[in-house]
């Protein structure tokens, strides 16, 4: 029996619908079709009236979720692609994120963002927007990189009383599999050491955790053992685990698929440079996608984003310090 990353997401939603009558799912094509990626397959049938097709209105999808949440519901809004969430930007960052701050009334909505690139998906079906939303106070931003986390973190997202931006990585949907789903997992805000090592700390999240693991295997053949920290959530971010790892290895490499200017990697490096300067033997380094929109042709796309080869090469450079 094996379960994919996507199935884990579906399972989490099914459990939420089953266990909590306040939960409903609102998104484009989520009901009859079961979602563009089948993340809600059969759920409309299993839970009639709780999984609804919305018009193409991301702004109103989020606005109505906020209103429903104020009245006690726990809506899950599915954006068809993270890239389209920008239409709802103002509702997310100006209304949802500020509601509790302004009124002391919580806003327990979950917005699922199918994020990241696949070959041929192009500039508007490949974006990683966690950095954008993490920037705004009041939001929780999750970036699961394993099947188990996709499940437990989505369940947790629905339970959290604050607006959660759930960045699920599309590349992992059907490619990442696990034997089974756990009952519980680490809480949001705790990072996980995905691999222990001593020569270099690689901080990653989402699909890049897998890419880092591949790089680690290659480096291991050269007797270089890297430690991989899977952030799991980027807001809140677990700096303690990162610093503890850097204390062991004295070198830091942050890898993320998002655009380079400002973002998760920059935050980790700034924090480590400030709070962990005395731990470093080498400058902290980051790898992101190139500073261009995501290209369409796979040849371009493969070079645009970080790869295990680039991680290996950068690791070598860091070890020369």
């Amino acid at each position, binding site marked *: 029996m094996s379960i994919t990353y996507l199935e884990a997401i579906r399972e989490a939603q099914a459990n939420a619908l089953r266990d909590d009558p306040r939960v409903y799912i609102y998104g484009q094509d989520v009901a009859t079709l079961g979602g563009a990626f089948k993340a809600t397959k059969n759920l409309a049938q299993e839970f009639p009236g709780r999984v609804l097709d919305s018009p193409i209105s991301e702004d109103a999808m989020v606005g109505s979720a906020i209103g429903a949440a104020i009245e006690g519901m726990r809506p899950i809004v599915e954006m068809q692609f993270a890239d389209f969430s920008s239409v709802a930007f103002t509702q997310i960052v100006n209304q949802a994120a500020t509601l509790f701050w302004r009124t002391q009334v919580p806003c327990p909505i979950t917005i699922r963002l199918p994020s990241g690139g696949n070959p041929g998906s192009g500039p508007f079906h490949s974006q990683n927007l966690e950095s954008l939303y993490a920037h705004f106070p009041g939001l929780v931003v999750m970036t699961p990189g394993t099947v188990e986390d996709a499940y437990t973190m989505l369940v947790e997202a629905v339970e959290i009383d604050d607006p959660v931006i759930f960045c699920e990585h599309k590349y992992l949907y059907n490619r990442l599999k696990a034997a089974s789903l756990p009952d519980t997992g680490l809480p949001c805000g705790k990072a996980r050491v995905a691999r222990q090592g001593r020569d270099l700390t690689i901080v990653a999240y989402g699909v890049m955790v897998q890419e880092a693991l591949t790089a680690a295997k290659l480096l291991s053949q050269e007797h270089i053992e890297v430690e991989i920290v899977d952030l799991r959530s980027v807001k809140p971010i677990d700096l303690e685990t990162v610093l503890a790892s850097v204390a062991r290895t004295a070198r830091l490499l942050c890898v993320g698929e998002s655009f380079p200017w400002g973002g998760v990697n920059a935050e980790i490096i700034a924090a480590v440079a400030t709070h962990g*300067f005395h731990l470093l033997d080498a400058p902290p380094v980051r790898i992101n996608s190139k500073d261009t929109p995501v290209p369409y042709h796979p040849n371009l796309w493969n070079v645009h984003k970080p790869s295990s080869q680039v991680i290996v090469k950068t690791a070598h450079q860091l070890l*020369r310090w």
Partner: protein
Amino acid sequence: MPKVPIIMPQLGESVAEATIIRFSVEPGISVEVDEEVIEVETNKAVMSVTTPCAGLLESFSVNINDTHPIGSVLGYIEASVEDAERLGIMTEAVADPVASSSEPAPKNPARSSESFVSKNDIEVPVSPGTTEFVSPRLQARLQDLQLHSTEIGVIAGTGHGGRVTVHDLEVYLEGLNQLPSKKASPMRLTVADSMRRAWTRPLATIGVSLSLEPVLAHRKTFSQSPGPALYLAKALAIALSETPQAAGRLVGDKIILPNSIDIGVAVEVEDGVIVPVFTKLDQKPLSELAARYITWLEAARERRLPDEAKTPGIATVTNFGSLGITWATPIPPPNQTLIAGLGRGEKRPLWDESSQRFVPRIEAEVTISFDHRVIDGGQSGRLIQRIVQLMMKPETL
């Protein structure tokens, strides 16, 4: 002749730009400071732009009817160096920061696209690759252990390019832990730090053999007779009052000159050295010197020297001869560049031309160590010869 720019001034609270309407002076004309040279129009009024200093109006760099923002350059004045410096304009000599640094950047460094980063066209080496590099982690470890970063100079590094790693440091320290040790006294640590800093200059030493006979005879005329080292101190003082630049200090491109002939005389104290300073020694009589020296010797050993003795000093005299040492290469303290030392007086056979035979004479070696960046063999040689001259005629001291 440096060029000073004429800048569009702030012409009113909300004014951001102005239009050139008239030039009041022709280029090539001599101008005074604050002279009106350009008329400009803002949305409120017609105003004048004046010269920032006197000089020759070299050129205007704008045209009539052009509009330019506040702060833009409107023209240039050829001005004096003083005026240019006063206004903060860099003169040509220091305009190129790369050329003026003591170690200029190489013109064609070994090109590797990974190891260089271009910052405004200045090559900045990225890879440390040297034993000098101390990582933040290593620095933090040294701080924890209260070790100076220069301590690692003796450690053979196993890191990239021979760098000392934290591991190397730990191995080294563990090796030391196996050996017996005792705590260094505060005096020892003070002297150690002073010597570390003193050693950052290229020092050289020269020496002569000096007959002590005249000095030994002269000192018998005193009730409280000064030691030969005090004669050396007075001779050094007089010689330096004649050529003070021999005790100069090089900082950047300037030689800092002494403004008072203050000479220190080194005194051994428990586990270290203290140097009381005799101010304006060139003007003080030897008799006074002798009495004061006895007093200050006591005081130094009890660490209660008066403030006057703690004046910085421009050169030092050390009498290692009293310790039985024939000659030595003393080290000038970090704030001085010159030190003279007197060795042990010994009876030696010296050739006497008049009697055509060897005669026994008491002689001692005088050595002078100096900062070779400030003076060379020639100047130091002349200095030591003058000292010898003075000490051969102690009545002139």
